[in-house]
């Protein structure tokens, strides 16, 4: 038996981008069907580090990032939970004068976007963050950046969309997608019920994260997207010593302490078990523990209770693909966030909704065109 759904917009992928697009499209009154192969927000959107950070992004992302900042500010009203979101500040540490100089340069370049970056160094830095000791010469603080619990935020967007009437189908994997005249036709396999699901829609959003190549390929848009796996670990709860979300200029370890006291740290890469699953890698775990203990001596006598990773889609230039298809009218892509999609995700969803309802957006998307890459060979999963 085949179930048929006819709607305005079909969305493939129920992460934070697909979920928020569904929510904003429902707010605009369109009929929406959201298809998720796993559970909504269970992949990269739900297992990432949880940094809600504008600081450090390429300038071309900052308009979207500012738009997202406003959405994060009204989370409870939008999705019914604050999801442990706190505007704790994001502090990017400089371990050398050269790193500090590049933080200063970033502050200058990003002026006008409203990040309100503050460079703090020397004695003032040590007075303000005695817990960070002598391991940094200074840092750049973005006072209104923060962090949140991705496990709670990302599923909540799809749930809020469903509450507004979106049809949300989890455990439903797309088997075929094509355009039949003016309509997209999606054939999906339902894990929770017998038979197939056929969705017909005027518009199709490809928000399938690391698996977005499958849809893009189906419409002749080969994109060089690779899967990478951030390595993360969490300690047992510790006395509070850190109130800001920490990054390090030039990369390396990052960390935040949650309200319960657990320290969440990240750095290095896990490895793929298969295209769908990944696991932390032993060397990365041990290196991360060493680097984290060096940066946060408070961790020296703590235990790591869990390590994890996820599957994220990366593009060669580390900017996402966002915007209309160049081959197929009615198809829009948003994927390839290259490890930095969490904060910006809800604004991307809102922008996609604008593109669908108004046909245009004030957001600058030129840097995110899908046809900016040299042609790549098609994906053969």
């Amino acid at each position: 038996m085949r179930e048929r759904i006819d709607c305005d917009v079909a969305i493939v992928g129920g992460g934070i981008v697909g979920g928020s697009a569904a929510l904003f499209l429902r707010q605009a009154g369109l009929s929406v069907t959201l298809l998720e192969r796993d559970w909504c927000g269970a992949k990269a959107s739900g297992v990432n580090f949880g940094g809600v950070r504008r600081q450090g992004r390429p300038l071309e992302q900052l308009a979207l990032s500012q738009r997202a900042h406003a959405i994060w500010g009204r989370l409870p009203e939008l999705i019914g939970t604050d999801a442990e979101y706190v505007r704790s500040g994001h502090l990017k540490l400089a371990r050398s004068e050269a790193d500090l100089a590049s933080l200063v340069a970033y502050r200058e370049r990003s002026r006008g976007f409203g990040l309100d970056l503050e460079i703090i160094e020397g004695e003032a830095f040590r007075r303000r963050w005695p817990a960070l000791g002598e391991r940094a010469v200074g840092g750049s603080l973005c006072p209104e950046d923060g962090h949140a619990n991705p496990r709670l935020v990302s599923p909540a967007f799809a749930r809020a969309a469903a509450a507004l009437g979106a049809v949300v189908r989890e455990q439903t994997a797309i088997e075929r997608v094509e355009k039949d005249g003016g309509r997209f036709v999606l054939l999906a396999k339902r894990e929770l019920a017998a038979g197939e699901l056929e969705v017909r829609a005027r518009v199709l959003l490809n928000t399938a994260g690391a698996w977005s190549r499958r849809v893009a390929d189906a419409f002749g848009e080969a994109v060089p997207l690779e899967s990478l796996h951030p390595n993360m670990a969490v300690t047992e709860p510790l006395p509070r010593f850190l109130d800001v979300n920490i990054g390090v200029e030039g990369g390396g370890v990052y960390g935040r302490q949650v309200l319960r006291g657990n320290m969440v740290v990240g750095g290095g890469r896990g490895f793929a078990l298969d295209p769908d699953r990944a696991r932390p890698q032993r060397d990365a775990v041990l290196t991360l523990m060493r680097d984290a203990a060096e940066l946060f001596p408070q961790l020296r006598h703590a235990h790591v209770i869990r390590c994890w990773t996820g599957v994220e889609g990366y593009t060669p230039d580390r900017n996402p693909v966002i915007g209309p298809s160049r081959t197929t009218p009615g198809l829009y892509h948003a994927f390839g966030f290259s490890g930095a999609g969490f904060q910006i995700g809800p604004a991307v969803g809102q922008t996609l909704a604008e593109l669908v309802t108004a046909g245009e957006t004030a957001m600058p998307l030129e840097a995110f065109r899908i046809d900016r890459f040299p042609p790549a060979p098609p994906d053969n999963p």
Partner: protein
Amino acid sequence: MGRRIERGGVVVTAELPTAKLPTAELPPVIVGAGPAGIRAAERLVAAGLRPVVVDEAARWGGQIYRQPPEAGGPGGGFTRPKSALYGFEAGKADAVHRAMAAIRDRVDYRPRTLAWNCEAGALDLLCDGESLVQPFSRLILATGATDRVLPFPGWTLPGVFTLGGSQVALKFQGCAVGRRVAFLGTGPLLYLVAYQYLKAGVEVAGVFDTTPFAVQARAMAGMLRDPSTLAKGLLFVGWLRAHGVPVHNGVRPLRAEGTERVEALAWRYADGREHRVSCDAVAFGLGLRSETQLADLAGCRFRFDAADRAWLPERDGAGRSSVAGVYLAGDGGGIAGADAAELAGERAAFALLEDLGRPVDAARVRELDRRLGGIATFRRSLNAAFPFPADWAATVADDTMICRCEGVTAGALRGVARSGQAREINRAKALTRTGMGRCQGRMCGATAAELLAQALGTGPDGVGRLRAQPPIKPLPVAATPSPLAGARSGREVA
């Protein structure tokens, strides 16, 4: 094999790159030095191999035959004869201990060592604060079991222990968990530990078995196939009664009462009559659950086992898992008890030898297979005699703590199930934090699955299983062997 390297005054532990060692030259690795691990090692040694035996404890014997600390060593200084420590099992305990002692110089024995990860044909071992990569081509997992804990109101009060924990206190620390102890739950261990406590001179406030007497009596018929075990079981009960210990059947715990620590256990019979017994400790457990995390990380395929109400790594009759070169023996692959563990350990070693193309004693293999088959039959009867209290999930109160590490109640779990947010256990974990704390779901995972299944109107096989993630137990941040990180063996990053 590990080696120590000194660089710039820093001692680090490294390993020979796996790729350069022909895998056939790697010694077999056994995780666990209980009855299964020891009998496996014994058989491999007899075949001329030198296995690595990794064990978390300071001395061999496993949980059931745990030895007290060595005299003169840390925590040593009390001596009790094996007859007092192991009761009717003293002979078996002694035989297992002696078996290991006899091969001690022919195994690479690693006590006080935690296998915290399994990745790409190698274990990660933690010993004395150092992490070491131990490659293997053959791996026998004899990881044992822990108590299955079914929470009831007050179970997190100081003074409430698991049956296994109470036994460890007695055998390893030479102390009791209280002066007057109530024993609650079901399963053979319930009577065994009560017996051991009484023998050690502790007052036993009573044995409170959740299984109705009629059910147990019916099931005894099946156990007649193994009269020695039946006799032993009856001996415990008879001995306890003869020493004035009240034995109650068909009991449901109401709550552990007390302010600073447990002062009484309130319980009722199925007909609703409520009772209260004063005690300063409660030892409770409802059977055992297998420690399967390493098998999961090793990539073994799992199946739901209705008898154990648990997801277990698949194994054939000889102990082969779904992963070539990985074998399972003893309670870690499914609960069957210590006698079966000894047989299964030896059988798994034979399977390993067969797979290496070595000659094996076919008559002995047939004998092991025959006896393991008999034990399987007996276990079915035992499961009938000590059934899982199937009404637990439906009756546990909303405010009862399920996940102790993260403070998650039964009500919170039911909430995500009934609102449609969680239809399987990993999703419930993500939304509620159940299983995210220090125990990583080793203690609470099974009960959370029972609750979720009940709330969703399905069986415990219908909500999936918690995925294992390293480290399988908390790993000290300071364990990092820093200078050589990155030069280690491992899989390429994708």
